[in-house]
């Protein structure tokens, strides 16, 4: 019916806009209130509450007294309510909505029989399912139990959700399958307080206590990873008077000194009377405030980073393979003698090096071919050309013959004769002849430059 139609019919009608969100918020608060009757409660929107009263009723003088207490308190708050206690949430819901007033269902009662008179709507089913059931002629819960379980299963097998499957709802009602409920948890407000042995009357002492409170509050907030936006300070005086001071911050903070400074201006007009005996600081509005790590950078700026941190930073930016450490490997071929490992890995066990021969300070990744002019094919070169420049060989030491690793290579690999040479300008290189003339593994041997001496 339109509002205009309703007004036509009844001009005195009271109109209030619907406020589902507000209703839900009210229900949440009621659910928290309802936790006075049990350890936890759950919402049952739009207008129901479920409270777990297992092993609680005796505190109120029995289940009947508990229901009476609920009803009286709700009435005092201005709510009309219907209550029921049953072994399962589904049964309690059904009794509260469609059963007698203040219905009680004890665990040893025959639940199926007690509930058989209730309409099928007591199963918390969706509207169209209820319509289907009514068209099938199933009006009461007893009717559902009368027909076979198989028939119901077949009829509703494609309906998975509990709200659309009467069989599941029936099982939940009778406690054959569990029904998880989502309890309401009260938001815990950070609160710190100090009870004082001696009531304080002086401002200096008050500031001191406030500092302690602010420190405590900062610690509590830090533990929750939050910062306070609004703080409420309550001062309980000896004569029962409560003085309250509020503080709102522009940004979430948990800086104790900052809080003290802000409160200091608000405490000037406090009348301590005969003394203040209790102070309580409450952060009624707090927001997430991540723990900061500012100090780490500062320390690194001042004292330098550790080696591990340095390697991490380098390998993150340059790639994991960019930061390496040379380690020795057993082998003959010079480029195989050294391998690269991550800096944190220890040196592998290796044989002591034989320091008979000088090794170059730097090794080219790939030995470069050089054109050589030599007096005799067996001897060392007189002159060679490398990267487009001619080097005159002034001094030479060699050859140092390094045979191929026969256990690893094919038999056609040629040996290497290494020469340590110095050219006329003093530049020192490590060159080798790849093979011998007439070794049957190729023609004229090639010359390569592999290393540079310092």
């Amino acid at each position, binding site marked *: 019916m339109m509002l205009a139609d309703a007004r036509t019919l009844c001009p005195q009608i009271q109109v209030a806009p619907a406020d589902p969100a507000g209703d839900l918020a009210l229900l949440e608060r009621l659910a928290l209130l309802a936790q006075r009757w049990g350890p936890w409660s759950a919402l049952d929107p739009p207008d129901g509450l479920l409270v777990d009263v297992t092993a609680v009723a005796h505190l109120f003088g029995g289940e009947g007294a508990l229901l009476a207490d609920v009803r009286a308190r709700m009435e005092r708050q201005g709510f009309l309510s219907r209550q029921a206690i049953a072994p399962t949430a589904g049964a309690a819901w059904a009794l509260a909505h469609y059963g007698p007033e203040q219905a009680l269902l004890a665990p040893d009662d025959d639940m199926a029989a007690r509930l058989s008179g209730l309409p099928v709507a007591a199963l918390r089913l969706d509207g169209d399912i209820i319509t289907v059931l009514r068209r099938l002629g199933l009006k009461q819960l007893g009717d559902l139990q009368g027909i076979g379980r198989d028939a119901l299963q077949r009829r509703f097998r494609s309906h998975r959700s509990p709200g659309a499957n009467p069989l599941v709802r029936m099982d939940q009602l009778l406690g054959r399958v569990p029904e998880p409920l989502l309890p309401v948890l009260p938001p815990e407000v950070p609160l710190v307080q100090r009870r004082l042995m001696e009531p304080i009357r002086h401002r200096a002492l008050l500031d001191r206590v406030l500092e302690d409170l602010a420190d405590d509050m900062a610690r509590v907030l830090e533990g929750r990873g939050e910062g306070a936006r609004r703080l409420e300070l309550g001062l309980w005086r000896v004569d029962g008077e409560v003085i309250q001071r509020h503080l709102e911050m522009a940004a979430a903070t948990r800086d104790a000194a900052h809080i003290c400074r802000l409160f200091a201006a608000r405490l000037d007009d406090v009348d301590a009377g005969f003394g203040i005996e209790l102070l309580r600081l409450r952060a009624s509005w707090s927001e997430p405030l991540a723990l900061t790590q500012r100090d780490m950078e500062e320390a690194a700026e001042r004292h330098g980073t550790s080696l591990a941190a340095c390697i991490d930073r380098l390998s993150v930016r340059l790639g994991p393979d960019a930061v*390496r450490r040379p380690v020795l490997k057993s082998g003959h071929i010079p480029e195989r003698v050294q391998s690269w490992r991550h800096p944190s890995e220890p040196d592998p066990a290796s044989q002591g090096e034989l320091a008979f021969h000088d090794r170059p*300070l730097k090794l080219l990744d790939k030995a470069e071919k050089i054109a050589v002019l030599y007096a005799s094919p067996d001897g060392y070169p007189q002159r060679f050309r490398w990267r487009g420049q001619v080097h005159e060989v002034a001094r030479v030491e060699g050859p140092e013959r390094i045979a191929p690793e026969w256990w690893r290579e094919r038999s056609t690999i040629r040996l290497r004769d290494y020469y340590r040479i110095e050219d006329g300008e003093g530049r020192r290189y490590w060159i080798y002849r790849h093979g011998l003339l007439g070794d049957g593994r190729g023609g004229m041997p090639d010359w390569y430059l592999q290393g540079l001496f310092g």
Partner: protein
Amino acid sequence: MFHRTHPSLAAALPDKLADSLVPALDPRRSGRWRPGEAAPLHSELFASGRDAGGAGLALSLALDALRHEQKDALAKAEDRRFVLWVQDREAMRRSGRPYRPGLPRSLQHRLIHVVADKPEDALFALEEGLRCRDLACVIGELAGNPRALSFTASRRLSLAAEQHGVPLFLIRLDAVHDLSSARMRWDVACAPSLPPRWNAQAPGVPRWHASLFRSRTHAPGEWILRDGGERLVADPAASRAATPDPVDLAGAVGARSLAAS
């Protein structure tokens, strides 16, 4: 090699006092560089990419600086700190990677090598290395004159090195002398090695022709340097100042050998 002392004011004063109170008498202020002095925290060595002379001298200077540091600290314990060696790809292509069997024995087991694809990355790695308190020194090798290595970048490196006390030796392969805030800048070339004792035909102990062309604290000069095992040695024959050294001529520099070592 001889040693001559000058009875003078600076000699009469304790070393510390002469260094701090009478700057004019401080031999480091305008005097000639001698091997074995405390190295500045940021040195630059210009060398050819066709040989490893720059790397060789940089290593010798680094070892010398480390020995000097240890002498200062009176630390008898073995230095276990790592040495960071940063190369960009181009430098590695031109002059190869460090080869562990050929490194100085005291550095073989404590070298960390960083390959940077670009000069920007190499500069980042150098700066991170300088900020690390667990490194003995940082050696960088950059080829050419990359745009990233501007005066500002070199100033950043100098400041980082001086803030954290980690020496930096930057080897510039095939580069021209651009602007830089390095405290000492050298031109390095290989020099004919010392003839070995037994085989005169063989190459001997490597020597480098080093010319200091810019320094805040020293007059420019040229030296033939070699690693003498315990310390850096300047061979006297070719070591001469590029310009006549007025302090040396005046002969008022205190207890200090006129012939370099």
